[in-house]
């Protein structure tokens, strides 16, 4: 009886397991640079005790949390510190999002508008004048270079150039491309199709794909995030029913759909979660099980540093991307210490956060400069903007590196009879 009570008496997010050891605070990137932030222990389990008694104990400083989850990775007691903080924000924050936050949050709406007028949009945001307007009126920091918008969406390219050939393969995956691939960098999607096809897999779009919602969550648009989450889950269910795994190229989208949907938004994903995977993990696991072989070009040579994005760290999956990269004979891979780059999605775009954001990333940028590499590899698109802006070193998704290094003919040959 007593035993059963103990086993069943587990509080939401393991909040009662907190030992007050403060180890989480040691690894919080915001605490390290901004003394106004109370840190994960105080904002999370400690503050929650008070908030449960009286919501007036909610503190606005909680919006300084990046939702990077490094506190959760560090906690020896399995407390979901970051989730406690996000939930408190969802429950108690009464401010409605500003126009700026809505713009930054709606990555797919703004994205599709901008793709239509890409040259103008890129030109406009690069102009000093409009940056000044963004800075002073919208409070989007003037130092930021906006990710450029592509003139043709990935989906458009795919439908025109690739879709028809996909049915000729015997095995299939669905691709959740995300906003970044669709609007800003279709090349990454093309790289994925190239690799998958070489490995004998046809690639398919989902019936209906919506932005994963990470930016909506960060900017307080929870209802919209939940609706989009539900649309994604139902599209994925029909893909899974056809026996397809859902592959992605973004660690943050993956983390959001696998963990945040359920933890924060109450979107039921229990039957979908394990079918969503990063493309690098998908490939590595096939190779590890002896079901796939990759062949690489003899003349490929590059020195690259790997940066572990926060949500990649939280998922514990950096090992998949790095193990895959290490298979490329001509690649010299340097591991950077795992730390936050400071951008955290849309956080660093806001004027009030710019300084904190750059301070957080500072030692990472120094490490990159010292590593003497041609490129940085990372699985997160917002890290890419931050690192490129702050160091000038080009940043590549591991999938793009594989696509560049792979020997397509030989790979097809190797996997013919598998």
């Amino acid at each position, binding site marked *: 009886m007593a035993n059963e009570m103990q086993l069943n008496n587990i509080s939401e997010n393991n909040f009662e397991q907190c030992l007050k*050891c403060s180890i989480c*605070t040691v690894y919080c990137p915001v605490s390290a640079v901004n003394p106004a932030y109370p840190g994960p222990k105080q904002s999370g389990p400690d503050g929650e005790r008070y908030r449960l008694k009286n919501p007036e104990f909610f503190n606005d400083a909680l919006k300084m949390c990046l939702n990077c989850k490094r506190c959760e990775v560090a906690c*020896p007691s399995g407390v979901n510190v970051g989730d406690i903080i996000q939930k408190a924000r969802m429950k108690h924050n009464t401010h409605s999002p500003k126009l700026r936050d809505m713009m930054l949050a709606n990555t797919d709406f703004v994205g599709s508008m901008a793709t239509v007028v890409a040259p103008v949009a890129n030109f406009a945001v690069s102009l000093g004048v409009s940056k000044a307007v963004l800075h002073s009126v919208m409070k989007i920091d003037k130092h930021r270079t906006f990710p450029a918008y592509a003139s043709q969406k990935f989906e458009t390219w795919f439908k025109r150039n690739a879709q028809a050939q996909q049915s000729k393969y015997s095995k299939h995956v669905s691709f959740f491309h995300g906003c970044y691939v669709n609007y800003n960098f279709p090349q990454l999607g093309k790289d994925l199709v190239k690799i998958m096809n070489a490995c004998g897999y046809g690639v398919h779009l989902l019936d209906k794909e919506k932005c994963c919602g990470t930016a909506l969550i960060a900017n307080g648009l929870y209802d919209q995030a939940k609706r989009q989450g539900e649309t994604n889950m139902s599209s994925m269910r029909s893909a899974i029913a056809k026996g397809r795994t859902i592959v992605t190229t973004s660690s943050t989208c993956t983390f959001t759909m696998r963990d945040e949907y359920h933890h924060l938004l109450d979107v039921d994903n229990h039957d979908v979660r394990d079918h969503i995977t990063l493309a690098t993990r998908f490939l590595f696991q096939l190779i590890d099980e002896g079901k796939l072989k990759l062949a690489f070009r003899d003349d490929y040579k590059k020195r690259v540093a790997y940066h572990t994005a926060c949500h990649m760290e939280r998922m*514990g999956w950096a*090992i998949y991307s790095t193990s895959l990269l290490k298979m490329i004979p001509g690649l010299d891979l340097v591991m950077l210490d*795992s730390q936050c780059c400071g951008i955290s999605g849309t956080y660093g775009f806001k004027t009030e956060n710019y300084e904190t954001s750059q301070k957080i990333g500072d030692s990472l940028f120094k490490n990159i400069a010292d590593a003497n590499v041609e490129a940085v590899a990372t699985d997160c698109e917002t890290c890419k903007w931050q690192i490129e802006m702050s160091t000038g070193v080009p940043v590549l998704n591991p999938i793009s590196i594989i696509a560049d290094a792979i020997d397509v003919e030989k790979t097809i040959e190797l996997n013919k009879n598998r």
Partner: protein
Amino acid sequence: MKFNTVIMGGGLSGLTCGIALAQAGQRVAIVATGQSSLHFASGSFDLLGYDSEGKAVENPVEAINALPESHPYKKVGDVEKLTAQAQDLLAAAGIKTTGKAGKNHNRLTPLGAVKPTWLTMEDYITIDGDKINYKQVALMNIIGYLDFPTKFIADGLRKLGAEVEVKPITLPELNEARKSPTEMRATNIAKVLASEAIVKRLASEINAKASNAEAILLPAVLGIKNSELAQLLKEQVNKPIHFVATIPPSVPGTRMQALLRKRFEALGGTFLNGDKAVKGEISGTKLNSIETEKLVGTRLEADNFVLATGSFMGRGIVSDYEKVYEPVLGADVDFIADRAQWTRDNVWEAQPYMEFGVKTDAQLHVMKQGKPLSNTYAAGQVLSGNNKVKLASGEGVDMLTALTVANNILNK
């Protein structure tokens, strides 16, 4: 994924074992559940501070002989050789220490007490016997930093024969950090004192306040990544300066964790941070692979495995209302069946539950259902038979059993 050895646990014992094996050319992975109890480290390493009767030990190497057969030290072999190996391993990782196994020295606790210990990180105050080397010391503390009870420490120092003046110091940046008063912890202060420029200003502040003291004592709040800034401070302050351990989270402990991990990775090791072993696949008396919480669908296969998951706090062993068990492999655990006997009412007495842990054979093979698992070893606090609080033996057991396991694996 295949490795020569997979180690469960990324604290002092797991990392020590991992470094020793990687140094010998093995392909090693460590699965680390969150951060370890190194974050509570005092800056010293205990080997054996007290004997079974609670008497302070002068020569741990000798006193180890008198421990009961159930103590893990009885399975490690040549203590003197292993302690030297441990000290070298720390030094190679950038953790320089003083002390030797044949003779304990004393350390100063954050509450001003004196305790026997084996090694202490350089730059820390150490005490030979019951006298401190200085007649007049300035005990400096940062204004607003509460994890450093200066009154107790000053009292402790006076008992050691020193005259003590307590001096508050600060810098504008440290004052700024007081905005979150609850977060004025050693590690957060270390993050403020993180550049050469600010350390130089701290040195001037210290020099200005030192008056006629012979030496300066300062809480250990410098150098979360390495000891370079502590070194710089020493050069800039014009009197001898030593650190005193603080209440955790500990800056030297955080630094040790980072440096040992770095060393392990530099030797080619794979460190799976924030993941945990959940299950093992055993056939007969052999562990073939383990599964982790995060790497679903990927088994970690290895020739040998090491269980270095710690005691209750690290969840290497877990208790419920009826029993104590080892959650990953279901290994045999030594514990008292009658739950009422687990604890003593007087908290200052040795608590029996502290000795609970995994059963092993003479080579530290993990026992399961009465038989040793032929390729699976245990090291560190997960082992039964050691009350590290009573004996002051924590770090010694962590490192010496880890090195023994590494040797047993390599000599197979």
